[in-house]
């Protein structure tokens, strides 16, 4: 059954705004001038060749990489002006699914899920356990609570990574190549899960991907990065029919 996309929020209902973002590594300018705005409940897919700065872009959004120029306004706050404590408060409202899942190897699945909640003193132990059960149920991994990450398959690790980020109920989700290295069936399941998260938690998301099937399922809007700038912007259908041959080549 084809997953149904969610209607996105109104324009000017922006939760994340990037203005004139620039980032260089030595003499290599990866991001030249990027300006993006994301509305509430919107899924934005970012396409681009390897090395075009897609991952750098989302790492700038959570303060893992400091931009050289530009502003990043997340939920009304410019994160480039924040101190570490203020940044950590904002980070709790942003979920980040890493390409590898980034599960903590030395912890069980349950401990992995409890880890982001360790500073939440207001939540009781019972409530935390309930949240773990709920998060695992959301990604269909109820039976893996006591397993170690090394016992899980690639797809399960991705799901678990997603469950761990969702446990804090983030308002914004950042997905770094969520379907890379997975078979087409598992990729589709992950893509549908992304859509479920958008519906259930009303999250706004940036999805970095090369997987056009994932883009087709999840995207409300897409941008294509080329040489550090936005080369094209539009819906999946619009970009598929783009006059630019290079943009069209992603869809072939």
């Amino acid at each position, binding site marked *: 059954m084809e997953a149904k996309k969610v209607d996105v929020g109104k324009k000017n209902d922006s939760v994340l705004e990037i203005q004139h973002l620039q980032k260089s590594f030595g003499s290599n300018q990866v991001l030249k001038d990027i300006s993006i705005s994301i509305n509430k409940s919107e899924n934005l897919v970012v396409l681009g060749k390897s090395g075009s700065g897609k991952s750098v872009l989302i790492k700038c959004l*959570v303060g893992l990489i400091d931009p050289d120029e530009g502003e990043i306004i997340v939920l009304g706050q410019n994160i480039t002006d924040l101190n570490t404590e203020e940044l950590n408060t904002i980070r*709790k409202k942003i979920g980040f699914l890493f390409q590898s899942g980034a599960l903590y190897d030395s912890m069980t699945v349950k401990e992995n899920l409890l880890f*982001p909640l360790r500073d939440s003193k207001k939540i009781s132990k019972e409530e935390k356990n309930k949240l773990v059960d709920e998060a695992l149920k959301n990604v269909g991994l109820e039976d893996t609570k006591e397993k170690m990450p090394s016992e899980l398959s690639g797809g399960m690790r991705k799901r678990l990574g997603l469950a761990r980020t969702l446990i804090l109920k983030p308002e914004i989700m950042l997905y770094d190549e969520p379907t890379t290295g997975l078979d087409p069936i598992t990729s589709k399941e992950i893509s549908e899960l992304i859509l479920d998260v958008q519906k259930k938690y009303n999250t706004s998301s940036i999805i970095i991907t090369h997987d056009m099937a994932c883009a087709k399922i999840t995207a409300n809007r897409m941008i294509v990065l080329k040489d550090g700038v936005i080369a094209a912007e539009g819906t999946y259908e619009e970009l598929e029919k783009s006059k630019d041959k290079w943009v069209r080549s992603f869809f072939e």
Partner: protein
Amino acid sequence: MEKLLSKLSAKSVKAVSVIAKIPQKIEYHYNIFQEFFIDVSTFSIFIGRFLKEMIKPPYELNELMRQSYLVGYKSLPLVGITGFIMGLVLTVQSRPTLAEFGAESWLPAMISVSIVREIGPVITAVICAGKVGSGIGAELASMKVTEQIDAMEVSGINPFKYIIVTRVLATTIMLPVLTVFNDVISMLGSFVGVNIKGDVSMHLYFSQALSEMDFTDVFPSLVKTIFFGLVIGLIACYKGYYSNKGTEGVGQAANSSVVLASLMIFIIDVIAVQITSLFIN
């Protein structure tokens, strides 16, 4: 004449090529020096951050306990076996020399003082540099490669406090404990060594061994093990936390943690001996 000219021109070409290579060599050595000073300054900043994060609450006590268990309890068998063998071998090797002077009765005291003052702390520290240092270096480097450290950071948790401070404190706290354990087991090994060619009761052995030992033997050696532990933890964490060459960096971090920590243990030992000798004859 022609031959001479061709020889001269060949030599001048060689000279020119040697001169042309000089700037490249200077640049090469300049880069090595630059990298060295960058490394030293980064390590100094790392130590400063460690001290700052160590003092600042909240404290990661559960993780500190877990790391202390991993560093201490898990190293007990290796430290114990090595200590026993060291005590035994040292006794068997020293007996003939002392026997020549008719001073065999000095064996327990001499061995125990050597173990407590020098051999115990250094052997324990070198074992820990190998076992614990390489483990921490490789673990942190692989956490970096698999983005686990980034994942901690984006979930609003301070990875430096959780990963670095706890591990460095664990090695600093556990090394003196492991050294005391190693000293006791070494003395047991020495007791066995004495009894291979003799008949000395345990009570007599230990009363002789401890009769020549006082506070000035035990205290300075325990203080230096604190610094040994600190340096093992700091170097291993630094090498792992700042590794940046993917999976290749994991091996490099483990290797350089052991090499550098072992070297620093001997340097600290020399400094500790000099400082101790200023106060104790």
